Structure formats: C-alpha cells, structure tokens
C-alpha cells in the first residue's frame, strides 16, 4: 500500500497540471492578479523614492513644505502596502491552484529565494511603519537624520524584494542554458537562475518605471485634492504637489526608453527569435498602440506646462510659440503612429502596389519614428525650459551669450536628429540602426548641456513675480489624470509585451504551456484585460485616496479643533 502513495500522487499531479477559473479562465485570473499586484508594487516602490528625496530637500533647505509633502506621500504608502500584499497573496493562490505543475517547477529552483523574499517583506513592512509613525517623534536634529535613514532602508528593502521577484519572472524569459523541466543543469545554482540574461535590464527598467509611475499617481492624488478643495492655501499646496509629481514622472520617463533599448538588446542577444517576435512578429502592432499612448503622454505633459505658465508672471512672452510646438508634437505623433506594413486584402495590396502605402509607408520606417520621438523629447524639454525661465531674468554678465549657446544647442540637436533621420533612408538597415545612437546622444547632450548652463545662468536671477500657486485652471488637473491613466495603461501594455513574447512557453524553450490557453491572444483581447486591470487598480487607488483624505481630516480636527469651523476660502498665507 505504501508503494501506491507516490503513484497516486503522480497520477493526481498529472491530472492537475492546470486548474480552471470560472469566467475568465486560469490565465485570465492570473493575468489580473499579477497585473494589479504589479501596479500596486510599482506604486509602493516608486513613492518611497520621492519620500526620501523630498524629506532630504526639506532637511537641507529647512523648508517644512517638503517635509509635509514627504509625509503625505508616505501616508498613501501605508494604505497601498496592504493592497499590494493582498494582491500578491491572491496571485500566489492562483498560481498554486491554477498552474501547479509550473509553480512546482519554479518552487523547485527558487524556494530559497522565496523564503528570503517573504522575510524581507516583513522587514520592509516594519521599516515602513517605523518611518511613518516615527515621523513626528524623530523630527529634529540627529533624530531627523536617523528618520531619513529609515527612508533609505525602506528603499533598499523594497528594491531588493523587487530584484528577487524580477529574477523569477526573467528566468521564465531567459533561463540558463541547459535548463530542463526537471530543473537547472548540474553546476548551475540559484544565483545563475536569478541573475539571468534579462535580469539587470528589467531591474533598471522597472526601477525607473516605478519612479515614473509613483510620480504620476502622486500627481493624480494632488490633482484630485486640488479639485476637491476650495481653500486657497490647500489648493496652492496641491497645485505645487501636482507639479512636483508630474515633473518627476516626466523627467524620469524621458530616461526610460534608454533602459528599454538595453532590455531589447539583451532579449535579442539571448534569442533572436524572441526579439523578432517582439518587434517584428505578431506583436509589431503593439508598438503602434504604444506610440499612440506615448503621444498622448507628451501632449498632456506639454499642455499641463503651457497652462501652468498662465500662473507665472513673465510667461506671456513664450505663449506665441506654443501653437507651433503643438504642431510639431502632433506631426511627430502621427509619424510615430504610422505602421510599417499594412495588413490588407489582396485588392488593397494591388491598389497600393505592395504591402506598404506609397506615401504613408515612408513614415512607417525606423528612420521616421526615431526622428519623431527624439523631436518630441526635445520639444517637451523646450516647454519645460520655458516654464522654468518664465518668471526669471538672468543677471549674470554672460546672460546673452549663455542664452545664445542654449539656443544653438537646441538647434544643433534638432539638426543632428533630422539629418540622420533623412540620411537613414539612403543606407542599408544595419547602418541605419546605428544612426539612432547618434540621434539619442545629440538629444541627451542637449538636455544635459542646456540644463547645466541654465542652472549657472539663473544664479542670482531677478524675479519677474512669484508663481501664483493654486491659480491653475481646473482643466490642467484633468491633464494630470490623463497622464496617470495613460501611464497605468502603458504599464499593462508593456507587461503584456514582456510576457507575451514567450508565446506558448511557461519557461522559454524549457517548459511548454500545454493548456488550452497556451496561445498568445491578439491585442484586442489583451486590451480588454489591461483595461479591466486598470479599472480595478484605479478604483482601489481612489478608495485609498479617499481614506487618505479621511485620515487627514481626522488629524486636522484633533490638532486644530477650530479648523473645521473655519469657512471655506478663508484667507491664507501663500505657501510659495
């Protein structure tokens, strides 16, 4: 009888390689749980980055406004943390019950790292509680620095936790050579499985993306509080907070494509077919959708900056340029969103004279797309510089020369980008690919050079007038919501791209998905799933925001019993 036990177990395991979930199926259930967990995880990893940076600024410049902002970020974290853990637990249950064979394979290889992960999660949680609840107790002198150190530790634990989880998911994309369904080859240990070919590019990409995402969600929180408030002081605070969040989101977002290039290159180097599937195979149309989303991001960010200039004295001198900048952004957006090859009927192919449109086909190639995206980055950077310079008048002796050099840097970068964009049409593919590096370098050099000159140029600059924080048109706050929703949707889309390139493999070329949902769905189905995840996430975030407001009202009533009795819109001292 004893001999029969493993036999029956084996039979059971064989029968239960996959479970089913009502309605959306096993894959759908795991998809939703994983994506919503990831969105919360990105939020709780991104926000602490700002919290420590803004707290440090507050300590150094001795401005309480930054400290208040940092604490407000952290209060959102406490609520979001529970949601992250709950969705993580749900994902674990779904994986163990719906994909037991695959989960068994992962557990066989990564069990030690899973235990460490759980342990670090505990430590991270306790550090967060200490950080938040110790805020007022450790608020001055050395104790404040100790408190800031807790914020650093919180980031260290969070980043380590993310790196471990990234090891598991990147193993699915790029397992070490020789891995079989039974496990790792002899001589290859846990570290090699974790630190696989795509691990570090994903780590860096996610680290930056978390900062972008955290900034966007914090800005959306500020926008909501701005719209809900009638108190000028409160509106001024949330206007400023929304600006800081949006600034961080957009400035880190500009760096994100470079991490994306690195990840793409590693994917190609690991396996050409996976890379081609991602960029040129059935997923090629995904990048058109991505272009549309990023175009919306650029337009919304620029719109926010342009409307924000309405509350900055001296910004009027830049207003005439914005319509031309809008034109440039829209033209570039259209070029970027043009598909390379058309999927069409035979009659349509015949009418076009091939699978490329005779005119639009020219815009669909990499030369045009790279040129478009780099010009969009330059235009957005120009908007930001206009915003930054609006209420300042340089007083340094070399002000005119400095401004001229900055203008030449912009013009030079644009010329380099356009030159290589056009030249790319006359050289072979392999040469053309290399041109994108020159274009990117020109834009980066411009951003760094212009910023450095600007910082020096504006030292001791005269003010044309203070920024009137809080006097922001309400429509500008809806642009912030568009940014937050778009970033969230984009995260879902990129998650589908990363996971979908494995196609019908749980672990690439090691463990095949033999379920009836092994096929990789088309974008329409993926879009439905992404939208469901985004709606769930944003609904829960809205609830957390509401809780945040509720908690704050409770605190302010206790601290200032008269505050509740004060009429809305009572005079308040400007914060900035």
């Amino acid at each position, binding site marked *: 009888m004893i001999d029969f036990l493993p036999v029956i177990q084996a039979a059971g395991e064989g029968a239960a390689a996959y479970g089913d979930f009502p309605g959306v199926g096993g894959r759908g259930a795991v998809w939703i749980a994983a994506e919503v967990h990831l969105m919360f995880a990105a939020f709780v990893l991104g926000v602490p980055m700002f919290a420590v940076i803004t707290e440090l600024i507050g300590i150094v410049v001795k401005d309480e406004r930054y400290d208040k902002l940092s604490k407000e970020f952290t209060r959102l974290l406490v609520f979001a943390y529970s949601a992250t853990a709950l969705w993580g637990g749900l994902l674990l249950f779904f994986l163990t019950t719906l994909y037991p064979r695959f989960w068994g394979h992962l557990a066989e290889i990564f069990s030690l790292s899973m235990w460490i992960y759980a342990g670090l999660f505990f430590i991270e949680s306790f550090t967060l509680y200490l950080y938040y609840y110790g805020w007022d107790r450790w608020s001055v002198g050395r104790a404040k620095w100790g408190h800031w150190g807790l914020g650093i530790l919180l980031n260290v634990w969070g980043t380590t936790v993310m790196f471990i989880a990234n090891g598991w998911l990147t193993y699915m994309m790029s397992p070490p050579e020789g891995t079989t369904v039974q496990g790792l080859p002899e001589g290859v240990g846990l570290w090699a499985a974790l630190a696989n070919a795509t691990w570090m590019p994903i780590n860096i990409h996610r680290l930056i993306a978390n900062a972008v995402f955290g900034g966007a969600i914090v800005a959306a929180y500020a926008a909501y509080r701005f719209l809900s408030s009638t108190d000028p002081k409160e509106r001024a605070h949330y206007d400023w907070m929304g600006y800081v969040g949006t600034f961080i989101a957009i400035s880190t977002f500009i760096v994100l494509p470079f991490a994306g290039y690195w990840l793409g290159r590693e994917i190609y180097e690991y396996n050409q077919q996976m890379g081609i599937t991602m960029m040129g195979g059935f997923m090629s149309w995904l990048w058109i959708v991505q272009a549309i989303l990023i175009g919306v991001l650029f337009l919304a960010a620029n719109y926010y900056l342009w409307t924000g200039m309405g509350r900055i004295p001296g910004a009027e001198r830049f207003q005439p340029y914005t319509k031309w900048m809008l034109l440039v952004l829209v033209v570039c957006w259209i070029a970027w969103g043009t598909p390379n090859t058309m999927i069409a009927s035979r009659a349509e192919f015949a009418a076009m004279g091939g699978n490329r449109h005779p005119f639009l086909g020219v815009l669909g190639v990499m030369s045009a797309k790279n040129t478009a995206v780099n010009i969009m980055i330059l235009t957005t950077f120009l908007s930001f510089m206009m915003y930054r310079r609006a209420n300042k008048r340089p007083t340094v002796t070399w002000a005119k020369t400095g401004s001229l050099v900055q203008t030449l840097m912009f013009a030079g970068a644009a010329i380099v980008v356009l030159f290589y964009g056009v030249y790319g049409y006359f050289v072979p593919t392999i040469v053309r690919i290399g041109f994108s590096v020159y274009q990117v370098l020109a834009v980066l050099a411009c951003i760094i050079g212009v910023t450095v000159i600007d910082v020096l140029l504006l030292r001791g600059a005269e003010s044309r007038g203070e920024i009137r924080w809080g006097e922001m048109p309400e429509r500008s706050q809806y642009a912030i919501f568009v940014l937050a929703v778009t970033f969230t949707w984009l995260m879902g889309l990129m998650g589908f791209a990363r996971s979908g390139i494995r196609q019908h493999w749980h672990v690439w*070329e090691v463990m095949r*998905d033999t379920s009836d949902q092994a096929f990789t769905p088309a974008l329409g189905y993926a879009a*439905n799933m992404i939208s469901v995840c*985004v709606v769930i996430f944003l609904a829960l975030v809205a609830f957390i925001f509401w809780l945040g407001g509720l908690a704050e009202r409770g605190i302010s009533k206790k601290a200032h019993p008269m505050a509740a009795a004060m009429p809305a819109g009572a005079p308040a001292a400007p914060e900035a």
Partner: protein
Amino acid sequence: MWKTNLKVMMVGVGVIGFYTVVARIIPQLQSDVPESIDLSSGVTPEVLTAAGETLYSGAGGCTACHGLGTRAPNLLTDHAGEGTIGQRCGEREPGVDCKTYLHNSLVDPGSYLVDGFTPIMPDASRQLSNDQLWAIVAFLQSQGGDVTVTAADVGSGETASGAGAAGGAGAAGGGTFSATTDPGQLLTENACIACHAIDGAGPPIGPSFDGVGSRLSAAEIRASILDPNATVSEGFEQFAGTMPTTFGQQLSAQQLEAIVQFLAERR
C-alpha cells in the same frame, strides 16, 4: 463634490475606453501554438506541404523576417532574380540538393548565409519538432519546385541534424523528457505505469496494459491516449478524468505510434 468625482471618473473611463477601442480596431494577430503532425495515417507530401504552410505563416514565425525584403531574403517571391525559393534552393550550394539545403538552413542558419544579410536567424529546431521542420521544408519546396520530402525523411530523426531533431522533438513535447521511441522508456517517462499495470504488476487506477491488444484495436488505443475521457472502461468510472489529456501535445508522432504498436501487440 459629486460633480468633481463624476468628471474625474468620466476622464478616466474616456481615456481607458479610447485605448481599448484603438487596440481593438487595429489588425488582430494571435500567436498560435505550433500544430503537431499526425503521422499515424502515413504522411503524404500534400499533408506535409499544407502543415508547412500553416507553420510558415503562423507559429513558425517565418514571416516576421522573410517577405519584408529587409531582414531576410524573400522566399515566396523572387529574390535577386533567382526566382522563388523552390526554384533556387537546388542551385544555392554545389552538391547540396534542395531539401538538404533547406533543412540545413533551418537547423544551422549560419551555414548558408545569403549575401547582404546578417546572421540573425535562430536554430529552428529549438522551437519546432523534426516533423514540423520537414513540413516547412516541403512547403518551401512547393514554392516553384517539386516536393521531394517523404515519410522516410520525417521518420529519420537523425537526417540533417541529429541534435537538432532530438532537441526539436523534446521541445515539441514540452513535458516529454527525451526523443526516445523505445515504448518501455516512454511508458515510464510519461508516468503511464503509475496508473496502468504491466506484466502483472502495478496499481489498478487505469485498465491493465496486459492483454490490451485483445480488448482494443490500435485505432482505439490511439484514441484513448489522445482523448482519454471519451470512453471510460468498465470498472474504472471512479477514476474518470484522472488521465492527462495532453499526450497529443507531449508526444511526437513517432513516439505515439511506438506506444500504440507496443500496446496493440500485448494480446
């Protein structure tokens, strides 16, 4: 306040709806799982060619590069005035016939690199089984040439690339642990004997393999492996649904046939 909430909600729903609609109106391409080829009824060039066409334009992923004229040579249309691939494959390398050239190009793509292109193609045997590789060869031959691939080519796993063929079979099997066609080893590797008794020993979770050839025909054995829940043997109703339904995907055609023949002979 409710007005603000409503406006915020409308902006959110509008943006999400816009992206969903955009993603739904563009061409919908789905990545299917490569189909396995059933050799049990005797493969013909027509069957291979049809299967190869499906793989070529679908799960094989060939069209991601071949046909755009930029990443890889066109195969279904003229390339450099040499005609379609079926017309030119026999002339590409001195002393190498068409089907060998095509098979080698699939399992060792760097061996015959066409001028003007970079070696970006991966070894196709890592993704496709030996059967599937030969099916693609047959399809490519049919593009302007004669199909010379036969059942004998498909059956000989060591034809052009022993390692590649073995790897491909293993890969196609997913849960299969080797490319063996030894029925005894296959019954062990696939845990068949964990439920079915053989030579008088083993658990009574499924019907015994002893004498199965006298109870069922070869076709019935094959059907009960591929679709085990279609018919449940008398006396084993309580274990209905226990047997995995994935052997059709896990086993290569040769492996399936090896098991079927082995069991059919156990009278």
